[in-house]
C-alpha cells in the first residue's frame, strides 16, 4: 500500500456502500416511473462502492502522505465527555453535569490548570442556567432527578 489515506477512505466508502445496498434490498426497488423506497439508496450505495474500489486500487498505484497520528486523548475526551453529558444531564441536573463537562473537556488541553478551569466551569454553569433555562426556557433540569429535582 502506498497511500494509506486512499486505502482507509476506500474501505470506509465500501463499508457504507455495502450497508446501504444490503439494507435497501428489503425496501423495494420499484421502476424508474414509480420508484420504490429502495431505488435511490441502492443507486447511491453502488456508486459509493465503486468510488471506494477506485480509491482502494489507487492507494496501491499512487503514493501519498501518511495519515499522521490520531490525537487519541483529545478525541476520547471531547467525544466521551459529550456522550457522558447527554447521558447524565437529566439525572444529575445542569448544575452538576455542566461542571463535569467543562472540567473533563478542559483536561484535554496541554495548558490545563485547576484554578482557571474551576472558575470557567462556574462561569459557564451560571451563564447557561441564566440564559438557557431561565431566559430561553430550555427544558433541561437545573437539579436532576437523583437529587429530587
Amino acid at each position, binding site marked *: 500500500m502506498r497511500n494509506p*489515506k*486512499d486505502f*482507509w*477512505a476506500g474501505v*470506509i*466508502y465500501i463499508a*457504507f456502500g455495502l450497508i*446501504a445496498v444490503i*439494507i*435497501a434490498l428489503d*425496501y*423495494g426497488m420499484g421502476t*424508474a*416511473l*414509480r*420508484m*420504490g*423506497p429502495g431505488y*435511490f*439508496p441502492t443507486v*447511491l*450505495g453502488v*456508486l*459509493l462502492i465503486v*468510488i*471506494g474500489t477506485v*480509491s482502494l486500487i*489507487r492507494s496501491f498505484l499512487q503514493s501519498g502522505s501518511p*495519515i*499522521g497520528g*490520531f*490525537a487519541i486523548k*483529545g*478525541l476520547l475526551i*471531547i*467525544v466521551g*465527555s*459529550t*456522550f457522558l*453529558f*447527554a*447521558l447524565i444531564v*437529566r439525572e444529575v441536573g445542569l448544575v452538576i453535569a455542566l461542571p463535569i*463537562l*467543562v472540567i473533563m*473537556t*478542559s483536561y*484535554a*488541553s*496541554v*495548558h*490545563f490548570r485547576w484554578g*482557571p478551569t474551576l472558575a*470557567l466551569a462556574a462561569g*459557564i454553569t451560571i451563564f*447557561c442556567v441564566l440564559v*438557557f433555562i431561565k431566559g*430561553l426556557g*430550555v427544558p*433541561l433540569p437545573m437539579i436532576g432527578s437523583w437529587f429530587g429535582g
Partner: protein
Amino acid sequence: MELIANLGLGLATAITPANLFYCFAGVFLGTLIGVLPGLGPTATIAMLLPITFVLPPISALIMLAGIYYGSQYGGSTTSILVNVPGEAASVVTTLDGYQMARQGRAGVALATAAIGSFFAGTVATVLIALFAPPLSEIALQFGPAEYFSLMVLGLVASVVLAQGSLLHAIAMVVLGLLLGLIGTDVNSGMQRYTFDISRLADGIGFVVVATGMFGLTEIIRNLEREEQRSVMITKIANLMPTKEDWKRMVAPILRGTLIGSAVGILPGSGSILGAFAAYSIEKKVSKNSAEFGKGAIEGVAAPESANNAGAQTSFIPMLTLGIPSNPVMALMIGAMIIQGIQPGPSVIKEQPALFWGIIVSMWIGNLFLLVLNLPMIGLWVRMIMVPYQLLYPAILTFCAIGVFSLNNTEFDIHMMALFGLLGYVFSKLGCEPAPMLLAFILGRLMEEYLRRALLISRGDPMVFITRPISATLLALALLAMFAVLIPAFSKTREEALGGEGAS
C-alpha cells in the same frame, strides 16, 4: 423605479430599533468569532440557530446573516496581527498582512482590510438587489426536472471547488446524500436506515451534523496542534493609509470585489475560494508582484475585498432558488424552514419585507462593521489573547445545549458526538466535510424531485435533456467535471485551493 420602492421597503424593515439591534448583535458576534481562531461561522450559526427561534423571522435572519459576513471582517484582524487565520477565508491575508504588521504597518493593513471589505460589501449588496429579483422570476418557471438538474450542478460545483482530492469529494457527496435519506420515506411511509430507533424516524437534523462536523471536529483538530499564541502588536498606531497606499489599493479592491462576487455565487465555495483566487490573480497582474509575501498592501486589499463580496453574493442562490451554496447558507435555509418560511423563488413575492429587509440590513451591517473594526480595534486585539483552553469548553457546552433544544432530546447530543468523531476520522483521511453537509441537506429533496420529474415524464429520463433550462444546467455540470480533467485547470485549482484551511 421598482427597485427604489423595494429598497425603501427594505430600509423601513431594517431600520426598526429591534432589527437594528439584531443586525448589530449579528455583526458584533460575527467579528468576535472571526477574530477568535478555532471558531468559524458554520459552527457558530449552527449553535445559535435554536436561540433564534424565539425571534421574529426577519430579525433572526438579519442576525444570522450578520454573523456570516461579520466573521469575514474579524478574520482579517487575527490574520494580520497573529499570523494565524481567524477564519478560513482569511488564510491568504496572513501572507502579506502579517508582514505589514512586522514592518510596523499593522494599522494600515487593518484599515485596508476594513475599507476593502466595506466597499466590497456595498457592491455585493447592490448586486443582490439587482440580480435576485430577475433570477427568482426565472426560477418560478422551474419544474422538478430543473430543480434536480440545478442540485446536480450545485453538488458538482461543490466537488470541483472542494479542497483536496476530487475522488474523495465525490464520495463525500454520495455519502452525504445517503445519510440524508435516513428517516421516513415521504412517498411510501417506509422507514429507511432507522435501525428501529424511533428518534431517527424524522431523520438526522442537519444542525446536529453541522455542529458535530464543524464544531466538535474542529475542537479536536485544534487541540492536536495547540500552541501558545503571541500577539506581537498590542497597540495599533496610525490607522490612516498614506496617499501612496490609497493609490495602490484601489485597483486590487475593485478586482477583488469583482472576483469575489462572481465566485461567491458558485455553489460550494462561498468566501474562501474567492479570497484565494483574488490573491493569485492579483499576484499575476500587479506591477508590484515582487513585493507579494513581503508585505504588499495589494495582498491584503484584494483577498479581503473578495471574501466579503463572496460571503454576501452567496446569498443570491439561497434567496432566489432556495438552494444553499455553502454550509452557512444551508443553515440559513434551515432557519427559514423552522420559522415557517418555505425557501425558494416565491419568497421575494410572498415575503417582500423579509427579502428586502435582509438585503438592506447587509449594507447597514457593513457600516456597523466599519465602525466596529476601525475605531474599536483595540477591543478585538484583547479578544485574540483569550486563550483557547478557556474557549473550547464553552463552545462545546453551547453546541450541546443548542443541539438539545432543537427537539429537546439527549439523543441529538449523542448523534452530534458521533458526527464529531466521524468528521475527525474523515479530516484525517483528507476528506472535506463541506460537500458532505451540502449533499446531506439536498439528499431528500433531490430524490423527491427526481421521482416527480420521472413521474411527470412517465419514466422517460430524457426529460432532463429535452427541457432547455434543465439541459443547460446539466451541460454546465458536465463542463465543470471535464474542466477538472484538463491539466491546466486542475493545476490552477490546486494552486487556488492548496492552502490549508483553518476553522
